[in-house]
């Protein structure tokens, strides 16, 4: 019921909306004695206002590093960045997030871009009451203390918590409640964008569903865009408008989520879909993707997936494919001839748009 | 072989064990070294040399108020201090391991009682008690002294061992062993003890330091064994005849430095081991 309704409203939102966050060819490398780890290696993604975009991938794909870098929440030194991330501020300015100094970044956080970390049980300060933890973010971004306190009950209600939760300490809350508090903090300053990193991991399925519903509702009520990272495809399917599949530091496929799930174009995406058991289809053997995730210190040549790809061709081992828009209509896809919806992009030699020569001539 | 790795990887352990080993070697070689310095004279004999000589080629640290060569005095005192400290460390570690083990393994009532006793010992200031005990015991030899010291320092090891045993007890491979009907004893000796070895070693190092501290406290007050000269006694006697006001501080510099080296060495060893065996303590990347 819900996804369909959301999808319709999404299309309406998306068409009209201006770009909010434009990641342009972002590369994040880490220098270490073992060499250079190219964890994120050239990704381009645009998020529009009011849009929910998901980044899907396994561990090691670089998706977490990608979002952590956006807000400079980085744990390691020796980081090198290339590319730009253009963000449109409240004031209408476009700033490159990669170039911001610590003070500017601090002001931007929470106020314009909020972060929801993994459903970790430890993201709240154990010795400070919940209400105060909602308030302190606001106060440090210019809201007066009294005014901030006044807003707390409203914020809590928005995420589905009773106002009295403000008086409690984090250890007195359940996992789902803690995650809601974190979401409450994230919306407290009405940011334009919320970045959520695996927001439902470590929560049980029911709670998961509730949290996703809450996030979706917040987008509708507040008009906030959401960038969600998760390895869990069903989660993407429940929440996001568009999904970008990441592999080996690069985005290999994007498109409307239902479209990607029904007709995956990239062999890796197809492998991911196949690995999800279906309740409706007849029981069949689950297929994994053979091989293991490569190491960011040494990505494979050519297409990074070629050594695990059941459809690999000779060109795949030598020439890396570009991510490119795929022409809609009846197309020969990895699943045979299928009807491809507009707005899809893929980086795979199975689709001529992706191969450099085709680029040069078209 | 674990210790070889430890030596290689932990700077603290390396430094600490080198220092400690040097001290031990020095102690072991004290006899020939003394002979080298003062020939056949008895280092403790009063009046072997003129009193209060300044440091010279003959007497590297001069002589004390009783005309004894300070260097040889220190050389014979070192092994005694070391012996008492390590002996006390060994006794208290053994006691601590036994009690800590029973406490951790059996759990329940026994654990509660033992833990209360242990905590009591930790909280109560034991030095005053040691002082009193030592002062009132006739003929306090090294061994008795070590026993006294051990009696008050075992709780530290007991606590560490107890928590280690408790965490080991819950580990899956122990459950497995229990399921395969191994007797308690087999589990203890086969699975648990080998994993406790590093913690016993750490406990020993710490207990030795603690005992050494207490030993210094006692002997410096003049309550140590009267038949033997140990490092603390040198300090105590020196203070007694007023070296500071006479400007002859050099006399107790050597014992103080050696003792500090002992404390540092053992502390570094135990810290190095702790960091190595407890990955959580290692600095984060």
């Amino acid at each position, binding site marked *: 019921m819900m996804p369909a309704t959301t999808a319709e409203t999404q299309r309406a939102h998306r068409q009209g909306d201006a770009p909010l966050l434009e990641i342009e060819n972002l590369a994040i490398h880490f220098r270490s004695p073992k060499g250079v780890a190219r964890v994120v290696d050239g990704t381009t993604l645009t998020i529009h206002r009011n849009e929910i975009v998901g980044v899907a991938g396994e561990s090691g794909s670089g998706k977490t590093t990608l979002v952590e870098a956006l807000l400079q929440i980085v744990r390691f030194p020796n980081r090198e960045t290339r590319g730009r991330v253009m963000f449109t501020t409240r004031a209408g300015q476009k700033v490159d997030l990669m170039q911001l100094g610590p003070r500017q970044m601090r002001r*931007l956080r929470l106020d314009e871009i909020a972060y929801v970390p993994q459903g970790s049980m430890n993201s709240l300060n154990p010795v400070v009451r919940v209400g105060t933890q909602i308030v302190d973010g606001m106060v440090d971004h210019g809201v007066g203390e009294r005014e901030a306190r006044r807003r707390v009950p409203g914020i809590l209600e928005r995420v589905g918590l009773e106002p009295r939760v403000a008086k409690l300490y984090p250890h007195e809350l359940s996992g789902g409640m803690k995650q809601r508090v974190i979401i409450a903090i994230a919306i407290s300053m009405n940011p334009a964008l919320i970045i959520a990193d695996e927001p439902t991991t470590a929560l049980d399925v029911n709670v998961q569903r509730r949290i996703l519903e809450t996030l979706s509702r917040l987008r509708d009520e507040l008009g906030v865009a959401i960038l969600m990272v998760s390895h869990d495809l069903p989660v993407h399917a429940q929440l996001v408008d568009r999904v970008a599949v990441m592999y080996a530091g690069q985005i290999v496929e994007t498109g409307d989520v239902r479209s990607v799930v029904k007709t995956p174009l990239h062999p890796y995406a197809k492998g991911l879909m196949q690995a999800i058991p279906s309740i409706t289809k007849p029981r069949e053997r689950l297929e994994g993707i053979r091989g293991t995730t490569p190491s960011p210190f040494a990505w494979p040549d050519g297409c990074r997936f070629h050594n695990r790809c059941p459809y690999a061709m000779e060109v795949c081992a030598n020439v890396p494919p570009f991510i490119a828009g795929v022409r809609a209509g009846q197309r020969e896809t990895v699943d045979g001839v299928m009807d491809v919806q507009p707005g899809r992009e893929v980086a795979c030699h199975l689709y001529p748009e992706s191969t450099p020569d085709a680029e040069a001539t078209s | 072989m674990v210790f070889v790795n430890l030596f290689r990887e932990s700077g603290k352990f390396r430094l600490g064990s080198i220092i400690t080993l040097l001290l031990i070697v020095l102690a072991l070689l004290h006899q020939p070294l003394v002979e080298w310095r003062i020939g056949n004279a008895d280092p403790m004999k009063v009046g072997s040399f003129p009193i209060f000589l300044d440091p010279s080629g003959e007497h590297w640290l001069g002589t004390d108020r009783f005309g004894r060569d300070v260097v040889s005095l220190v050389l014979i005192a070192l092994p005694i201090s070391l012996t008492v400290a390590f002996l006390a460390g060994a006794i208290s570690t053994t006691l601590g391991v036994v009690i800590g083990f029973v406490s951790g393994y059996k759990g329940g009532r026994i654990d509660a009682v033992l833990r209360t006793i242990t905590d009591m010992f930790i909280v*109560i*200031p034991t030095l005053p008690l040691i002082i*009193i005990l030592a002062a009132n015991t006739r003929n306090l030899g090294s061994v008795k002294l070590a026993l006294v010291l051990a009696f008050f320092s075992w709780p530290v090891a007991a606590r560490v061992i107890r928590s280690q045993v408790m965490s080991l007890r819950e580990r899956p491979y122990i459950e497995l062993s229990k399921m395969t009907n191994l007797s308690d004893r087999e589990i203890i000796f086969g699975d648990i003890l080998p994993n406790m070895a590093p913690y016993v070693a750490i406990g020993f190092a710490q207990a030795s330091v603690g005992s050494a501290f207490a030993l210094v406290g006692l002997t410096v007050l003049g309550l140590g064994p009267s038949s033997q000269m140990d490092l603390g006694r040198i300090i105590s006697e020196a203070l007694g005849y007023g070296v*500071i006001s006479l400007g002859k501080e050099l006399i107790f510099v050597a014992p103080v430095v050696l003792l500090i080296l002992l404390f540092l060495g053992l502390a570094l060893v135990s810290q190095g081991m702790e960091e190595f065996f407890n990955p959580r303590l290692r600095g984060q990347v």
Partner: protein
Amino acid sequence: MVAGNPPATVLDDEPAGPQLSAVPRKGALNPTARYILRRLGLYLITLWGSLSASFFFFRMLPGDPISGIIAQLQTRGQYSAIEGSQDMVEHYRREFGLDGSLGEQYVRYFQNVFTRFDFGPSVLSYPTASTDLILRALPWTLVLIGVSTLLGWLLGILLGTLTGWRRRSRWAEWVTNTALVFSHVPSYFVALVLIIFLAYRFSLLPANGAYDASLQPEWSLEFFLSVIKYATLPVLATVLVSLSGWMLSTRALVVSILGEDFLTFANAKGLTPRRILTSYVMRNAWLPQIAALGMALGSVVSGNVLIERLFRYPGVGNLLVDSVVIKDVNTAMAVVTLLIFMVLTINLIIDLCLPLIDPRVKFTS
């Protein structure tokens, strides 16, 4: 509009969370009260146990106390008789509470101690009561211990926080390494060094006694200044060592807190560095250190004994050593009793107050 649940009922099918069950039920003895009672009980038992243990400890020390006492008194010219007659021995037995069976002595001793704070006459300055000797010495010890412990703790956790917060800077490394060395050296040795250099070589500060010998204890500025002057070296020696210990442990705590998830989130929230340092780092690091203060008290007291002796500071530690050396059992026992009582009581207070400041600590049985 999507699944329009009014907020009140969105409070879900989710379990209400553990906090509701922690609310005390009316009527039943709630866990808090139960815990307090148990803790108090433990305190009283420990107190009684250790006091009894020390009683028997002293009573079972080798040697006959009476002849020792008489010998002491003889050497001080209080008695000219060559050997004690039976009457004299009986007299002193009674005086010092050593008549009757062990059981009777035990009961009588405790009665005296708890009702009249009477520990019996001392030998050090017979016939002055031990209690009086202690009362005279106690303020000095309290001053010394109080000031050094608090200063060492406070400065230590402050420095520890700073070196943990800025642990990559050069000065932080230096300070940390220095502290590492100091923390393993007994305060006694530090005191010796200070005495050599500051008292003798450069005659900057005195190293003997609690105040200038020419002054009388009185409420005057001159006296206070003198007290401060004479307390400086002992306090300095103790503080240097204890500060290092606190600094290192606080630093370790701070470093581990910095790696915690809630710190990352605090950063992501865009909180000011100042707020992160105070509300997030310090508050989490200092709480365990308050509890640790209680635990450390035992060793503080022990170390203090040696320092007092070295500086001839007229506190109870010095008194203890003096009384032990001449086998003044009453005084020695009184000092030990006092020390044990102080340590246990302070620990009790800290334990009971801890939940007031640390919300995570709940009274659980």
